[in-house]
C-alpha cells in the first residue's frame, strides 16, 4: 500500500533473529552510522525544541515579515533562517515542526503496529476463521488507497485534533505489521519447542506469549522504523494540503505551503522545511535498511560474474597423463564467506581419457559438485580456485578469463544438473531454449537450427518434438526435462560432459532410461563423461574409473572394477556397505557413524580419522599420502603403508 512499507515487508520477512556479530556489523556500516547520528540529533531537537528554539514559533511580528536567512543579503542573527509571511521565526517553527511531525508519526506508528502485532499474532496462532476474516479485511484494505479516504475525512470535519490525525494515519498501517507477524508466527508455532510446551500442558495463551511472542516481536521494530519515515511524509503531505494540525501549530508541510505562496518573493522559504523532511526521513530509512541488513542472515553478495581473477598462485609443475583429455591437479576451491572461509575442495587430482567415463562418488559436502563447477568455471560466487590446475586438452582452464571460458562452455565442455526442473528457464519455452543453445553452438541459420532441434529431441526419445517445443518446463515431467537437457548436449557434441547427479531428482524407472540414453550417446559420440553421484551402484554399472571424495579430499581413485571388488580406503568400504543389495534386501544397511569434519577449519591428518574403524595415532597427526595399490589405483590411507606395494608420497 505504501512505498516504504512494501519494501519493508520484503526485508522483514527475510530477516532472522539478530545474528551473531550484529554489533560489529553496525559499527562497520557507514550508512547505518550516519543514519543513527541523524536520527539522534533530530529526535533530540524535537524533544528539546522549547529549550533550543530562539523564539516562540507562533509569535508574529508584522514589522519584520519575510526576512531572509543569515546567508542571504539582509539576513540577521536575530532570525538565522529568516521569518515567514507573519514575521514568525522560521528556525523556531521548523524545530517545533519536528516536534509535531515526529509526535504524530510516532503515535500513528504505535497505533498501527500495536493493532498489527495483535491481529498478526491472533491470525497466525489461531488460524482458521479468525485468520481468514482478518486477512480478508487486509485484502480490502490493500485494495484501495485509504489515504484518499483520509483526505476526504480530514477535509470535511469541523476540527482536526491531533488524535484524529493519528487515528487516520495510523490505522491503515496495521496490515503490513499483521502480515509479517502472521507469517512469522506460522513458522514459529510449528517448531519443536512450542510443540513440546503444548505436550507438557501449556495452554494456547501461554504458548503464544511465553514461547511464540519472544521470537516474533523482533520483526516489528524494523518495520516500525521505516513506517515512521513514511508517516512523516504522509503527515507533512496532509499539512501541506491544509489538512494537518490546524494553524497556528507549526508543521513542516504547513511551513512549506506558506512558503510556496510566497516563493516568488522568498525562494528559501519552501526549501528549508523540505530539507528538514528529507534529512529526517533519509536518516530513519538508513537506520531501518541498515538494521534490516544486519539482521538479514543471508548477508552474502552474489553476482553473475565468475569472481575468479588473476590471483591464482602459479601452478606447481604438474606431471600429466598425456593421453588424458582432462587432468585436474592439486585443485583447491574456497568460498570466502563473512566470518569464515569454507575450503570445499582441498587438493583433488584425477585424470580422464577421451571417451572414458569417470564416476565421482562421496556424500553431500564431499566436494563433488564444486569440483565439477570449478572445471567448467561456474563456481557459485564467492567461490574461487585458490590453487591447482584444470588441464583440458593441455591448457589450464583455471587461468582462463571468463570470456575465454564462455567460448569453451557448451561447445567443448557441457554440464547437466541435478534438478532438470530448475535448469531450464521457467518463463521461456523448451523450443526457444533448445534452439537458442543450438544456434549459439553451431551458428547455423534459423531453418537448420529448427531441423537440428527436432532431430536431437527425437534422438533422446521424445516422440512429439513439435508439441514439446511449444511447452514450458513446468508442463513437462522431470524425466522429459532431463531429456531436453541431454538433447542440448547432444546438439553441441562437446568433448567433455559433466553430469552432476543427473538422475537423483527422477523416479527410479526414469533414472535407468535417462542414464542408459546418456551413456549410449556419450559412447557413440566419444564424449568423456564425469558422472557425479552418491549412488555407487550407478558408478559400478556405467563408469570406467572411479574417484572417491571425502570432505574435499581424494580417498581413492582407480578402475571401477578394482575399486569395487577390492576397496582399499575404509571410507570406500563404508560407502559400499551402505548400498542396499538386491539379493538381500533384508540385510541391515550399514550407516557410517559420525559427521563430516568442519569445512571451515584447517585440518591435520586424515579427514576420515574420526569416523574410521581402523584409526591409528598417525592418522590424526599427518595427512596420509596416496599409496599406489596397483597400476592406476591409489588410496590415501596408512593401512597400505606396509603393503608390498611401495609407498609413494604425492
Amino acid at each position, binding site marked *: *500500500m*505504501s*512505498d*516504504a512499507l*512494501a*519494501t519493508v515487508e*520484503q526485508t522483514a520477512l527475510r530477516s532472522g533473529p539478530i545474528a551473531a556479530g550484529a554489533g560489529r556489523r553496525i559499527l562497520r556500516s557507514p550508512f547505518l552510522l550516519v543514519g543513527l547520528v541523524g536520527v539522534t540529533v533530530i529526535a533530540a531537537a524535537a524533544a528539546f525544541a522549547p529549550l533550543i528554539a530562539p523564539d516562540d514559533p507562533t509569535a508574529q511580528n508584522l514589522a519584520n515579515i519575510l526576512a531572509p536567512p543569515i546567508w542571504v543579503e539582509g539576513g540577521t542573527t536575530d532570525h538565522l533562517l529568516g521569518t515567514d509571511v507573519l514575521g514568525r521565526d522560521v528556525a523556531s517553527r521548523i524545530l517545533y515542526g519536528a516536534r509535531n511531525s515526529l509526535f504524530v508519526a510516532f503515535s500513528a506508528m504505535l497505533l498501527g503496529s500495536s493493532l498489527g502485532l495483535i491481529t498478526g499474532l491472533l491470525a497466525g496462532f489461531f488460524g482458521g476463521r479468525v485468520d481468514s476474516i482478518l486477512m480478508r479485511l487486509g485484502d*480490502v484494505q*490493500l*485494495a*484501495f488507497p485509504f*489515504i*484518499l*479516504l483520509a*483526505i*476526504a*475525512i480530514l*477535509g*470535511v470535519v*469541523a476540527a482536526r485534533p491531533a488524535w484524529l490525525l493519528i487515528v487516520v494515519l495510523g490505522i491503515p498501517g496495521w496490515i503490513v505489521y499483521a502480515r509479517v507477524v502472521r507469517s512469522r508466527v506460522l513458522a514459529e508455532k510449528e517448531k519443536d519447542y512450542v510443540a513440546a510446551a503444548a505436550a507438557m500442558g501449556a495452554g494456547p495463551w501461554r504458548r503464544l506469549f511465553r514461547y511464540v511472542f519472544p521470537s516474533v516481536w523482533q520483526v516489528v521494530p524494523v518495520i516500525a522504523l521505516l513506517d515512521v519515515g513514511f508517516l512523516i511524509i504522509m503527515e*507533512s*503531505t496532509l499539512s501541506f*494540503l491544509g489538512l494537518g494540525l490546524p494553524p497556528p501549530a507549526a508543521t513542516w508541510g504547513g511551513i512549506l505551503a506558506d*512558503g*510556496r505562496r510566497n*516563493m*516568488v518573493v522568498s525562494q528559501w522559504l*519552501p526549501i528549508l522545511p*523540505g530539507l528538514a*523532511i*528529507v*534529512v529526517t*526521513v*533519509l536518516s530513519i*530509512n*538508513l537506520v531501518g*535498511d541498515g538494521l534490516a541488513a544486519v539482521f538479514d542472515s543471508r548477508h552474502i553478495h552474489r*553476482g*553473475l560474474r565468475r569472481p575468479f581473477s588473476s590471483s591464482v598462485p602459479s601452478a606447481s609443475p604438474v606431471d600429466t597423463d598425456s593421453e588424458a583429455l582432462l587432468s585436474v591437479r592439486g585443485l583447491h576451491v574456497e568460498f570466502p564467506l563473512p566470518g569464515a572461509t569454507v575450503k570445499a575442495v582441498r587438493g583433488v587430482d584425477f585424470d580422464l581419457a577421451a571417451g572414458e567415463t569417470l564416476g565421482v562418488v562421496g556424500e553431500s559436502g564431499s566436494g563433488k559438485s564444486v569440483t565439477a563447477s570449478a572445471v*567448467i568455471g561456474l563456481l557459485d560466487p564467492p567461490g574461487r580456485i585458490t590453487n591447482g590446475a584444470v588441464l583440458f586438452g593441455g591448457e589450464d582452464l583455471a587461468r582462463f578469463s571468463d570470456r575465454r571460458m*564462455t567460448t569453451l*562452455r557448451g561447445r567443448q565442455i*557441457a*554440464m*547437466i*544438473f541435478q*534438478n532438470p526442473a*530448475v*535448469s*531450464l*528457464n*521457467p*518463463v*521461456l519455452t523448451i523450443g526457444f531454449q533448445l534452439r*537458442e*543453445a543450438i544456434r*549459439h553452438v553451431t551458428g547455423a541459420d534459423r531453418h537448420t537450427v529448427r531441423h537440428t532441434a527436432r532431430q536431437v529431441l527425437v534422438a533422446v526419445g521424445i516422440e512429439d518434438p513439435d508439441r514439446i517445443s511449444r511447452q*514450458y518446463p*513446468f*508442463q513437462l515431467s522431470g524425466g522429459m526435462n532431463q531429456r531436453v537437457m541431454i538433447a542440448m548436449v547432444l546438439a553441441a557434441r562437446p568433448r567433455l560432459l559433466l553430469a552432476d547427479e543427473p538422475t537423483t531428482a527422477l523416479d527410479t524407472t526414469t533414472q535407468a532410461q535417462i542414464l542408459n540414453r546418456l551413456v549410449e550417446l556419450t559412447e557413440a559420440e566419444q564424449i568423456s563423461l564425469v558422472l557425479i553421484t552418491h549412488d555407487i551402484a550407478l558408478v559400478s554399472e556405467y563408469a570406467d574409473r572411479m574417484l572417491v571424495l571425502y570432505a574435499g579430499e581424494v580417498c581413492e581413485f582407480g578402475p571401477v572394477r578394482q575399486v569395487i571388488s577390492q576397496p582399499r580406503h575404509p571410507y570406500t568400504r563404508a560407502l559400499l556397505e551402505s548400498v542396499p543389495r538386491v539379493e538381500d534386501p533384508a540385510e541391515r544397511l550399514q550407516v557410517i557413524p559420525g559427521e563430516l569434519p568442519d569445512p571451515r577449519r584447517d585440518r591435520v591428518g586424515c579427514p576420515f580419522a574420526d569416523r574410521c574403524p581402523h584409526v591409528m595415532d598417525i592418522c590424526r597427526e599427518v595427512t596420509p599420502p596416496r599409496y599406489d595399490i596397483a597400476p592406476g589405483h591409489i588410496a590415501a590411507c596408512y593401512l597400505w603403508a606396509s603393503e608390498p606395494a611401495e609407498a609413494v608420497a604425492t
Partner: protein
Amino acid sequence: MRGRVLLIRLGQMVLVVLAVVTIAFFVLRLATGDPARLVNPPGTPEEIITQTRERIGTDKPVAIQYVDYLWNAAQGDLGTSFRGAQSVANAVFGALPNTLSLAGITIVISATLAVALGALAAWRPGSILDRGVLVWVALAQATPAFWLAVLLVLIFSLNLRWFPAIDMAGWRSFVLPVTTLVVTLSPILIRTSRQSFIETLREDYIKAARARGLPSWRVFAVHGVKAASLPLVTLIGLQLGFLLAGAVVVEAIFNWPGIGKLILDSLASRDFPMIQGGILVAAVVFVVLNFVVDMLYAVLDPRVGAARA
C-alpha cells in the same frame, strides 16, 4: 481464466468498491453533521436551510439516502453538485482522463527506469554503480512529492522558465508533474527490480544457461530480464493507490484538472456528491487497473497463466 474464477474475482471487485463507497458515505455524513448547514454560511435563516435540505435531498433518513445513492450510482447517475446544477458524473468523467494520462506516463517511465537501473545495480552488487543506485533510491524515497514539485517549479518555471508552472496545456506541462510522480514511484520499483535481478541470477537455470556457453550479456538480457521483471508487474499494481495519492498532491500544485484536484476543490466547498463521486470513480478505476495487472501477469508468466487456464 475460467468463468467461475472470473465471476468470483468480479464479485470481489464489486465488494471492494461497495465497501469503499459505504465507508465514505457514512463517515462523511457522521463526521460532519447536516450538509445543509455546511453548504450555507453560518447564521443562515432556518427556512433557507430547510429549503437547501429539500433541494439536496438530505431531509430523508440517512439509510434511505444511502440506498437511493447506490441505486442511482448503479445506473450511472452520481447526482448533482451541491453547488450549482453540474452533473457529478460529467465532472468526474471529464477529470478522469487527465489523471489517467498522468499516471500512465508515470508508470511507463518508472517501470523502464526500474528495469534498467535495477539490472545495472544487480550486475555487480556492491559496485560503485550499485551503491550509486541505492543512494539515489534512498534519497528519492525520502523526498516528499509536494516538496519536489515546489522545487521543480522554483527551478524550471520561475528561474529557468522552461516549463509552465501550472495548468494542462501541451506536452511541456506534463514534464514537471510526471517528473515528480516518477521520482515518487520509481524508488520502490528500482529496489524491487534490483533485488529480483540478484535473486534471479542465483537461479540454477542461469548457471545452466551459462554452462551451455551463452555469453553473459545474453544470459542476462534473455534469461534474466523476463523472469526478473515479473515481480514489478505485481508491485505496480500494489503501488497504484500510492500513485493516486501522489496525483492528488501533484494535481493540487500544478493546478491539474484531474480527479485529485476535483476532490480537493470539492472538500473546500463541502460538495459531498462531488467528493463521493470522485472517491467512487477512483475506487472503480483502482480495482479495474488491479484486475488488468493480474491479467497481464497471467499472460506474461506461463506458470500462472496455465494454472488459471
